[in-house]
């Protein structure tokens, strides 16, 4: 854009860098310690340097199948992400008009945030026990005998587990939508309506493009919350564990630096993917600029 950056830019850039360094603080210990020697532990001192633990991550084995848990958590996280985005955007739209029960929904969402996760988890477990008992006792009465036969539990990753995660991600999604729709210019929509657009068209072609980057942010947030969720899943996941639960279970016995190696790999892969995506975008933008269209779109 040509204009010179104000001094505040440099100060804040420095501040931001410091924040990022702070965020990566414990990660640095993880990165270093994942190269522990074969006899090394989870703390300093380093006992030699090796790639042993990266090998362990790929060779699998061990008490818990980290690979399978990784896939389960990924699948759950993605489903949670999609549902969170769709429901939050829809509810966010709803809150722009007054409707009966708005306050109740709002405070329910807040309460869902406050309730200690283990208690929510416990409540969901109790609920599913009642459901199980009901199926076992009464399914036959309704001609659903096949449902009760061999039925052990209705709990699972995508029933009780998904529900538990949504009680955690949806309040965040909804409240962030409030921030997004704050002082959202309603005249744009009116204009679209005046031009004869249906409500769906108005949303699809006017509202969505404006809020899209923020909505992507909600998705990212929802996924991250689900991916890292522990307490809420603990009593509500049924007989298969998510990745954090497996990792936590692992800490009840000899824990080796392979969990650090897993952390290092996760970060490394994320960096590579983001770097690749960024390069592609930058190249495309540079090409666009060379061709003269959209000239002057500054980078930072």
């Amino acid at each position, binding site marked *: 854009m040509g204009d010179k950056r104000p001094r505040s*830019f440099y100060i804040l850039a420095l501040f931001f860098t410091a924040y990022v360094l702070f965020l990566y603080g414990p990660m640095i210990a993880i990165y270093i310690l994942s190269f522990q020697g074969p006899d090394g532990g989870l703390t300093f001192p380093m006992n030699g340097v090796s790639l042993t633990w990266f090998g362990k991550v790929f060779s699998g084995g061990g008490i818990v199948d980290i690979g399978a848990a990784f896939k389960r958590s990924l699948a759950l996280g993605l489903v949670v992400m999609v549902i969170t985005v769709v429901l939050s955007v829809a509810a966010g739209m709803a809150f*722009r008009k007054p409707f009966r029960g708005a306050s109740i929904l709002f405070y329910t969402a807040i309460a869902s945030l406050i309730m200690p996760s283990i208690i929510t988890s416990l409540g969901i477990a109790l609920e599913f026990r009642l459901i199980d008992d009901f199926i076992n006792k009464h399914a036959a009465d309704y001609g659903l005998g096949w449902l009760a036969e061999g039925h052990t539990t209705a709990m699972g990753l995508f029933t009780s587990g998904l529900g538990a995660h949504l009680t955690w991600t949806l309040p965040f999604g909804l409240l962030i939508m409030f921030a997004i729709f704050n002082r959202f210019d309603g005249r744009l929509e009116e204009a679209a309506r005046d031009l004869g657009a249906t409500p769906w068209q108005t949303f699809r072609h006017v509202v969505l493009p404006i809020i899209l980057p923020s909505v992507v942010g909600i998705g990212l947030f929802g996924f991250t919350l689900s991916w890292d969720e522990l307490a809420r899943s603990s009593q509500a996941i049924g007989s298969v564990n998510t990745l954090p639960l497996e990792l936590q279970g692992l800490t009840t016995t000899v824990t080796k630096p392979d969990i650090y190696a897993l952390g290092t790999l996760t970060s490394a892969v994320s960096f590579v993917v983001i770097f690749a995506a960024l390069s592609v975008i930058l190249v495309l933008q540079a090409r666009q600029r060379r061709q003269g269209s959209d000239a002057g779109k500054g980078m930072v």
Partner: protein
Amino acid sequence: MAVTIDNSPETLAPAQSTLRKMTTRSIAWLQAGPMTLVFALFFLLPLVLVVIVSVWDYNEYEMIPALSFRGYTDTFEGCVANLPELCTILKTYLKTLKLCLLTWALTLMIGFWVAYFLAFHVRSKTWQIVLSLLCTIPFWTSNVIRMIAWIPLLGRNGLVNQGLVGAGVINKPVEWLLFSEFSVVLALVHLFTFFMVVPIFNSMIRIDKRLIEAAYDAGASGWQTLVNIVIPLSKPGIVIGSIFVITIVMGDFVTIGVMGGQQIASAGKIIEARLSALQFPAAAANAVILLGITIIIISALTRIVDVRKEL
């Protein structure tokens, strides 16, 4: 949703106006319905069960489905008898509030400026996304692993102590870096600053840049612009971020437990100790108390700034 009325309001007949209101309402209900359903199934119903259990009796080994308020009365044991000394529950809540307040202040300070930088100084969407991702990557390594890593970082022989001793800043390793209130707040700030950044950032990018330019043109200083334009207009974001941080910290027991060496009291930890001893009614009663107290704090907060206005 097929009904579209494109007449301007002034020309509408009263009947049509009512119709329009009703349609808007039913659309709102359709939009909010799915989320309400999820909360009803997975939060409200379980909550009802928890409240029921909280007024059950229990003995050393099992729950007894008989009405009893023991879970509640035991919690406030000694609150009157021990005066002027504070009882356990008050001490615990004071400690929790202190940690909460410190964490809130710090996350707000850091989060505000990070969001400010991202919203006003990073002008391209691409870079905003890239920098946000950079801040998200550490959270993709499970917290279980990151928690363990604080020991090698802050411990007696950890990286920080080694660095400080090596640089000659201190002679021997300092102890208060780990298993202290310092480390608890540090870890909480580490975990939750981004929860502050996201809503504040989203509020800030809604601020019309022309407003700020106009302020500068009118001779306002950077500080004046900040106080009179940026902060008031990002208030909803600040309040939403505050709701996130306060609610999570009030109920936290994992971070406070691990970083406090399990020696620092918190409202969540009381519940956890009860749960681990399988005293579900007492745990449920404590959760209901925590829910009540935190709801009061949050509704006070939203009374100051209504985040649902100006939507």
